[in-house]
């Protein structure tokens, strides 16, 4: 039937009336209006005819033999299901109670005898409008349901793919606890964690602008960069620069990603922090006391052009048992009925009141529930405990090659000069190179730690001439790293030489690493003679190097470190 002439569309109308004269009269009126007519003499016939022919509109006499109109109405409505089949009761009844019964039985309207053709026509038309409206609503509802199912299925697939990428990391490490809604990805929330080759832990809590698919699309490339660069041993700064550049390139102008990144070194007991646009995270002391906020100091990722991007991080000392607590804006931005925000102060009170770390998430959620009665679905919480390094050991790396082509007898020397030291981190390249030595792979973590330590000693204490005593207490720690940045920016002379020598030894082989710098050197025997307890935050490096390597010596008044690793015959 053509939609344009919907007004005069012929309907099929069922008329149930036991009086033959009335039945004929009604049939004539309705037919004259251009509709098709079906007739029944009682309720039972009417129900049977309805089941067979499915008319659009039903006119029912209330009082009929065999089955009355009320019962017929109930049965017809049941047969019609969700579709609206308007029933107009034909009645000579006039008392209110009877009319109410008509409506209660499922009638939509009634028509009093004697019948007026004009009113009947108008009522059929009005009922037809209702019928169409209902049909449209049902159709749209089904359509929405179909789209919704479709969307849910797409989300399920997208999430499954993404989970493969996102959970490739170490979120399941025993010292990490996190809470995230299963579909956080579609709120733009992102949580990633991975070990570096040296056993440090990189963590990212991010929040893309917006909701739904647009918020989720940036997550995949971001995760790829994060995991790829972390596994290759790049530091936070390089990883951040790459993530920012990538997002800037692929995202539309109004989309960006707030992010808080951590580089936790359990070996050296420090954490490096970069926060661009996320709510304050917190460093929670082991024994109560004031939480230290990790404040947002940068624009979110994906806004600034690569040359304007600021990758400056802050470095904080860590102690055993301390915890890092990160959260998404879903927590502080939860609002009550009066648009009051939960806010930072309420959160800090919850943190201060917490006695058992294991209950912190529950306490935060309870506070949110109490505040609003219902918390937002985009709350992400993350809690990382500072533990002994061996408790958070890196997952074994799986190598694809057989090891037959491993080089065994070579040496290489690099010299990195001022301009390079300023802006380039050579460690990932050196580490990549050393990974080719298959015999050393079992000691990969130790090797990376030692190399990192030697390089940063040569740079910070050697080339930049920073006094390690500055790091002795937590307060001066920050100024140490500030000074480090200033001196590095101003650097115009100096060098670090790295000499790598690999040679066969018995059935296996050995690697000798020499790191030499242009600095003033240091009194080796004095530093090494200090008891561990006095070495505090500054002396840990040398001890670490000695503990992790087979042999470690310092020559040329501390300007040259020489470290040896060895391996047995390969199985």
């Amino acid at each position: 039937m053509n939609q344009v002439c919907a007004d005069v569309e012929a309907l099929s109308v069922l008329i149930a009336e036991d009086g033959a004269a009335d039945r004929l009269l009604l049939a004539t009126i309705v037919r004259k209006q251009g509709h098709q007519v079906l007739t029944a003499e009682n309720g039972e016939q009417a129900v049977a005819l309805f089941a067979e022919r499915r008319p659009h509109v039903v006119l029912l006499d209330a009082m009929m033999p065999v089955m009355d109109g009320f019962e017929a109405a109930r049965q017809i409505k049941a047969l019609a299901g969700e579709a609206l089949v308007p029933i107009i009761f034909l009645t000579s009844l006039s008392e209110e109670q009877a009319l109410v019964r008509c409506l209660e039985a499922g009638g939509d309207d009634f028509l009093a005898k004697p019948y007026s053709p004009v009113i009947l026509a108008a009522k059929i038309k009005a009922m037809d409008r209702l019928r169409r409206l209902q049909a449209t609503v049902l159709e749209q509802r089904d359509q929405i349901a179909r789209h919704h199912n479709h969307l849910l299925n797409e989300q399920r697939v997208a999430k499954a793919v993404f989970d493969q990428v996102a959970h490739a990391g170490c979120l399941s490490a025993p010292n990490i606890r996190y809470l995230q809604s299963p579909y956080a990805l579609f709120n733009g929330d992102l949580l990633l964690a991975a070990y570096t080759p040296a056993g440090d832990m990189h963590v990212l809590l991010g929040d893309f602008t917006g909701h739904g698919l647009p918020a989720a699309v940036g997550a995949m490339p971001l995760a790829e960069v994060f995991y790829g660069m972390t596994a290759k041993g790049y530091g936070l700064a390089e990883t951040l620069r790459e993530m920012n550049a990538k997002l800037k390139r692929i995202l539309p102008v109004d989309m960006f990603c707030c992010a808080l990144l951590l580089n936790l070194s359990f070996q050296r007991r420090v954490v490096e922090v970069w926060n661009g646009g996320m709510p304050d995270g917190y460093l929670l002391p082991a024994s109560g006391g004031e939480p230290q906020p990790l404040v947002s100091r940068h624009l979110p990722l994906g806004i600034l052009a690569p040359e304007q991007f600021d990758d400056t991080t802050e470095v904080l000392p860590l102690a055993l048992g301390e915890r890092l607590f990160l959260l998404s804006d879903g927590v502080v931005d939860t609002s009550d009925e009066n648009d009051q925000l939960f806010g930072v102060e309420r959160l800090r009170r919850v943190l201060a009141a917490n006695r058992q770390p294991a209950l912190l998430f529950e306490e935060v959620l309870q506070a949110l529930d109490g505040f609003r009665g219902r918390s937002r679905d985009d709350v992400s919480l993350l809690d990382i405990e500072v533990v002994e390094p061996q408790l958070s050991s890196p997952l074994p790396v799986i190598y694809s090659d057989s090891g037959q082509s491993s080089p065994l007898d070579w040496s290489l020397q690099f010299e990195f000069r001022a301009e390079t030291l300023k802006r380039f981190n050579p460690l990932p390249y050196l580490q990549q190179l050393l990974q080719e030595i298959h015999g050393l792979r079992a000691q990969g973590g130790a090797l990376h730690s030692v190399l990192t330590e030697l390089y940063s000693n040569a740079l910070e204490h050697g080339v930049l001439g920073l006094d390690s005593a500055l790091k002795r207490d937590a307060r001066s720690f920050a100024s140490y790293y500030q000074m480090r940045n200033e001196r590095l920016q101003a650097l115009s002379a100096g060098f670090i030489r790295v000499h790598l020598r690999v040679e066969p030894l018995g059935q296996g082989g050995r690697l000798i690493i020499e790191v030499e710098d242009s600095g003033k050197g240091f009194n080796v025997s004095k530093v090494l003679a200090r008891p561990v307890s006095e070495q505090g935050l500054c002396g840990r490096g040398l001890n670490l190097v000695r503990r992790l390597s087979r042999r470690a010596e310092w020559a040329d008044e501390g300007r040259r470190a020489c470290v040896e690793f060895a391996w047995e015959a390969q199985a």
Partner: protein
Amino acid sequence: MAVESVVSQDGKKLTIKVKGRFDFGKHQEFRNAYEHKPARPDSVVVDLKEATYLDSSALGMLLLLRDHAGGDESDVRVVNASSDVRKILAISNFDKLFDIS
């Protein structure tokens, strides 16, 4: 109108006022406030005096406006922000891109 825009008499300054919640619901209105203007104004002022709340999509809209007004060469000021709104701008460090007062 929840978003009003006024161009100064000399045509050099565009002022955009946002009222109520500044979130994704205002997206189209906010874009209309600066797109399709006969001439590009030298400076844009976003007046948030009557804005009660601002979410991350509003930050995105501000970035779009900045881009439209010339990116790094643009002169976009955000004025009269309430303390709540100012906090949100501060967390994202948008003061590095916009003159906020």
